[in-house]
């Protein structure tokens, strides 16, 4: 099914609403889908993403667990072994850390270690990132940890439609998916029809959100709106920036990324997570490996600083913003003539 809803039925919806709808539809479609986590039942989650689901599907299918993240993920592993399709909610990014042992040593390896006999069709929903004025430990961007763990798929929506489509795809996947939900986009709105939802988005495909010729901004999740804004602002400087939304960090869409960068010849990777050891290094390195002769300048990065996430009153200085992106675009060696003699 590739049809899109007729424009008439589309109306503004928030990313939170689209996520709730995705969970709802997945539960309705497949009785093995079980939600679990802290406060996901009666309360509907602290971000209200599971609102109403316990009521509709019963507490057994949307259940409040004891407060213990390793226990939540560890029991979900056992449930998956018995044929269920657990969808786990971690309440905040940093509170997934106690479950890392289960994630790294079991969730990510179970299929592999059992020679394919025990798949892990688990979805782990992690509200991530800052910009919401959260107190300490409520604003981390931890995608680097997930990316360094072979066997995990790492997916993050940046649009309302993707929130629905990618979450449906994550739940349908027979492999574990870390589904990163950008906290500060929960209340972002877009025209979208909950009655005829967009088709399930395939995992592993990047998407060009804005066409441009001068350079490519490569980003995902919470930084997409910032990049789009930067691209608009860049017009005043005479730059026509392309903006690429990765959507899936693993699998990584080398094809789409390289096609764009080969066309524009310049790239900046933008993310909120600290730069050192963050996803940007991997992305820049693989672009350079694959597109070296097409590059007019090194791939640059705009990332969070290499510091613990700051207190709310200082977070705006940490987060990649339009100015920092434009300053970086300005460093893409627009004036240099050195590429002329290239043989590639």
């Amino acid at each position, binding site marked *: 099914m590739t049809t899109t809803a007729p424009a008439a039925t589309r109306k503004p919806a928030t990313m939170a609403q689209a996520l709730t709808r995705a969970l709802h539809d997945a539960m309705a479609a497949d009785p093995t889908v079980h939600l679990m986590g802290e406060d996901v039942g009666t309360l509907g989650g602290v971000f209200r993403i599971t609102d109403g689901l316990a009521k509709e599907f019963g507490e057994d299918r949307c259940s409040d667990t004891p407060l213990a993240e390793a226990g939540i993920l560890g029991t979900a592993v056992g449930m998956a072994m018995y044929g269920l399709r657990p969808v786990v909610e971690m309440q905040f990014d940093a509170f997934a850390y*106690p479950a890392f042992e289960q994630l790294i040593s079991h969730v990510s390896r179970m299929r592999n270690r059992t020679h394919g006999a025990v798949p892990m069709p688990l979805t782990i929903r992690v509200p991530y990132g800052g910009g919401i*004025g959260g107190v300490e430990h409520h604003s981390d961007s931890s995608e680097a940890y997930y990316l360094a763990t072979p066997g995990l798929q790492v997916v993050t929506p940046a649009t309302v439609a993707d929130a629905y489509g990618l979450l449906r795809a994550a739940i349908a996947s027979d492999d574990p998916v870390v589904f990163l939900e950008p906290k500060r986009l929960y209340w972002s709105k877009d025209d979208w029809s909950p009655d005829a939802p967009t088709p399930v988005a395939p995992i592993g495909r990047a998407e060009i959100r804005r066409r441009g010729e001068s350079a490519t901004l490569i980003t995902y999740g919470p930084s997409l709106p910032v990049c789009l804004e930067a691209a608009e602002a860049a017009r005043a400087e005479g730059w026509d920036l392309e903006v690429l939304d990765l959507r899936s960090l693993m699998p990584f869409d080398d094809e789409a990324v390289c096609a764009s960068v080969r066309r524009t010849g310049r790239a900046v990777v933008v993310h909120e997570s600290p730069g050192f050891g963050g996803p940007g290094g991997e992305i820049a390195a693989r672009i350079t490996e694959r597109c070296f002769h097409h590059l007019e300048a090194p791939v640059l990065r705009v990332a969070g600083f290499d510091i613990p996430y700051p207190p709310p009153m200082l977070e705006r200085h940490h987060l990649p913003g339009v100015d920092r992106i434009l300053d970086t675009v300005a460093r893409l060696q627009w004036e240099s003539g050195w590429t002329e003699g290239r043989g590639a």
Partner: protein
Amino acid sequence: MTVLEQPGSSRNKSSLPGPPPDWRPRVDPAPLLPDAEPYRLLGTPAARGLDADLLKRLYAELVRGRRYNVQATALTRQGRLAVYPSSTGQEACQVAAALALEDRDWLFPSYRDTLAAVARGLDPVQALTLLRGDWHTGYDPHRHRIAPLCTPLATQLPHAVGLAHAARLKGDDVVALAMVGDGGTSEGDFHEALNFAAVWQAPAVFLVQNNGFAISVPLAKQSAAPSLAHKAVGYGMPGRLVDGNDAPALHEVLTEAVQRARRGGGPTLIEAITYRIEAHTNADDATRYRTDAEVEAWRAHDPIALLERELTARGLLTDEFAAATQDGAERLAADLRGRMNQDPALDPMDLFTHVFAEQTSQLRDQAAQLRAELDAEQTPAEEARP
């Protein structure tokens, strides 16, 4: 014919093999078990024997604590505080924890325990820095012997144990008191901390404030134990169950545990049964998961009212004392209000100052970048980008 070279087939006289060679019950479990009912003093004949000064001190602190809670919650409505997890209804736990400690002891509070820190003498504005958002920890933990208010649940408990253990190794008679919620007892860190404490006989006291809920999740979905204090048995430490709204009872049980720890008697687990009268935080909607009737029932068991009844019965609640108490509380609130209404002075360059003792070249570069951006912000826009 046997598979083992054992005198197995030629049987011994006694047909009873001994117990496994190394078996012995290592500790008698009986003294570790908590009482069947929460311990209380208020309303019992024993209350009559309590020291009047102590009761008055506790009362004054409770009233002050309640006023602090009310004021902090009001500040969230006025936008001067990002979020406040109120301890209204739990003031007896907060106050008793603070008063049970000597100056040299350490307090390890959870994110809900700003009042305990304030009752210990911490400046209320510094106690609220985390929740206002200008810096994570607004005070020097060493100066106040108060560890950072801890957001990740139960994760400060092993810190308390390690600190208590280190103090003991150094020969200092310092005790660490760590606070955690009923929900937090489910975390692995709770288990590991208590086990280390018992094995090391560390001078640590664990106070579980069982307020019946972890945000929306009621205790019955959190634990099936007879009580949370019963968890003590599995570590080999005594468990105590206390009415968490009975300030003198709490004070007595906590003081006993602290003294025992100080004497080298090892750790104690204390469960205080209480109730959170307000929502989880100002951002929470408690009507989603509990009834007004339940809240009302607990209001009738309010820690201040309980103590007030006793003070009145003993004629200790004179108009003069009540007025002075009220006055002190109002002064605290006015001071807090006034100072929280001022914007804190912030230096964005602080982001880089304390990541490492010595700044890395990477951080130096990033600091320079931010410095340049801040300078550019001062400059007219057209000059900013060359």
